[in-house]
């Protein structure tokens, strides 16, 4: 029996300023493709159309357009930064295609032509700050990449901190891809914040964490870096002294102890060997491709309208747990975890939400919250 070959665009930057994230994402997507293509019972196979925009925002739209028009792709698994996603959205909307976006982002968007599998602020920043503000203190130092992700997360963090009676002692930005971070360390040393929120992306994040590690070696009581987008990949290759003690919120960590994740990691060990650590970008793209292939199987077609009906009608088991996608917002309900990094660059889980949190991309409900986080009576605020 011949199988239908379905082309799917994989659009991640595997070169450029956040290439490490892109390479892991491509690997994740390809792992999901391999699973369906090796399944003899499948009536279709996926043909990966891989393009590398090189981290240049303007190239994303051109490549997405070409994938849809000349290579008949009706689905694009791709984009990491909001800058690039916003370049691709008009293209998929124009052609009736579907963009599968699987990374944490700042919210304030809900396109019918996109599926949002990454966390938005009520699923990452708010739970992170609910944990951090009562435990570490109210004086935050914010660093971020200089585009909408950094700006908007900073704005929400400021509102949340100020509603708790705290203050942002500094709010600094770095061009995407820049590794000039010494001035940030100097300012942190001078202002002595209670914690640092990093919204840096890719090599900027790694450079900052590394430089902060050097600073911390000679500074007692240096506060932690906290982030909504720090994963194992950002700590890989850094000196061991720089890797530990950072708090990250994520929908997945390699060490997630669940039957689904153990089974997934066992499969990935067969494919990539036991040394390969599964990072959040790998898992995210894997999940997107995996849900797409199961939806194609259910629908018997890759037509975006039919796929949207399927994915918003039922729950999908994933290594991060069951995922349900909201029909109106096209956002996934996700279960955020909080991890603390150690010297190996892995994250130990500190706490997890009891259940999946429904996405509130416009912070309509969270905006009405009048319940600033409470300082636990038994915990001392570390100054």
């Amino acid at each position, binding site marked *: 029996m011949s199988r239908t070959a379905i082309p799917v665009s994989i659009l991640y930057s595997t070169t450029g300023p956040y290439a490490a994230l892109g390479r892991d994402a491509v690997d994740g997507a390809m792992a999901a493709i391999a699973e369906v293509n090796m399944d003899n019972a499948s009536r279709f196979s996926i043909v990966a159309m891989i393009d590398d925009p090189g981290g240049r925002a*303007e190239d994303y*739209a051109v490549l997405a357009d070409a994938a849809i028009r000349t290579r008949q792709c009706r689905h694009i698994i791709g984009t990491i930064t*909001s800058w690039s996603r*916003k370049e691709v959205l008009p293209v998929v909307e124009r052609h009736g295609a579907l963009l599968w976006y699987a990374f944490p982002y700042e919210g*304030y*968007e809900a396109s019918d032509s996109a599926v949002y599998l990454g966390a938005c602020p009520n699923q990452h920043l708010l739970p992170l700050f609910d944990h951090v503000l009562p435990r570490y203190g109210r004086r935050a130092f914010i660093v971020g990449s200089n585009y*909408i992700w950094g700006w*908007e997360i*900073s704005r929400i963090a400021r509102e949340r901190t100020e509603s708790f009676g705290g203050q942002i002692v500094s709010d600094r930005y770095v061009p995407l891809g820049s590794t000039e971070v010494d001035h940030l360390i100097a300012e942190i040393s001078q202002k002595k914040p209670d914690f640092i929120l990093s919204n840096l992306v890719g090599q900027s994040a790694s450079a900052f964490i590394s430089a902060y590690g050097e600073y911390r070696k000679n500074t007692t009581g240096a506060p932690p870096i906290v982030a909504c987008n720090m994963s194992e990949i950002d700590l890989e290759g850094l000196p061991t002294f720089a890797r530990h003690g950072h708090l990250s919120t994520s929908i997945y960590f390699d060490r997630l102890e669940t039957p689904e994740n153990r089974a997934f990691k066992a499969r990935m060990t067969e494919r990539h060997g036991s040394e390969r650590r599964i990072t959040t970008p790998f898992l995210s793209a894997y999940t997107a491709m995996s849900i797409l292939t199961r939806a194609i199987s259910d629908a018997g077609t890759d037509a975006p309208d039919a796929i949207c009906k399927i994915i918003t009608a039922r729950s999908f088991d994933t290594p991060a747990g069951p995922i349900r996608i909201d029909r109106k917002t096209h956002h996934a309900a996700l279960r955020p975890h909080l991890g603390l990094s150690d010297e190996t660059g892995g994250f130990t889980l500190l706490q997890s939400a009891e259940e999946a949190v429904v996405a509130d991309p416009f912070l309509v409900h969270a905006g009405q919250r009048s319940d600033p986080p409470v300082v636990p009576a038994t915990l001392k605020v570390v100054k």
Partner: protein
Amino acid sequence: MTRRIRPPLAEWHAVILHREHPLVDALRRQLELLQIRVTVCWPHLDEAQATADVVFFDADMGHDGQFPWPRGLAPMPIIALIGSEAPGRIEWALDQGSNAHLLKPIGSTGAYSALLIAAHAYQQVRAQADDIRVLEDRLRQRPIVVRAILHLLQNEGGNEAAAWKHLRSVAMNWGMTIEDAAEAICRNDKRTRSGA
């Protein structure tokens, strides 16, 4: 229905403050169809372009210091080009004094209505600012009204009601504001004397 005066678009010069992008080409096409002369610039608008009749500016990547005028005091209608509907970006566009907006992506429509709405909003903001300035002047002149009433009570006799009546009639007869009339009374302008 109020008939509004439409701006003479064919004589207009528009500046698009945006990096190179297909949307800039789409917007330029729309504006040139209206016979508007178009200049594109990025990342700054220089003083020579401050004479433009309208400025379209990027709200997504825009930042302070791009305009050669103080924040919010553009000397022409300005129109935000919005892709990210994030509150931070919209607030930034509002801080610049945006009179209208166009949502990205930009296709073949939208610019004309944005131009008319922005031109109207800008005129209204200007008119209201003028009104506020006049009212503030009048508020500043209030002490002179009190002084004028006291002056009339002392020099013309009669009661407070008569003094007010006198003040109002001076203002009416000479086509002045109450405040200007009061000032004239205090400096003994001969037009303000009884029977004048």
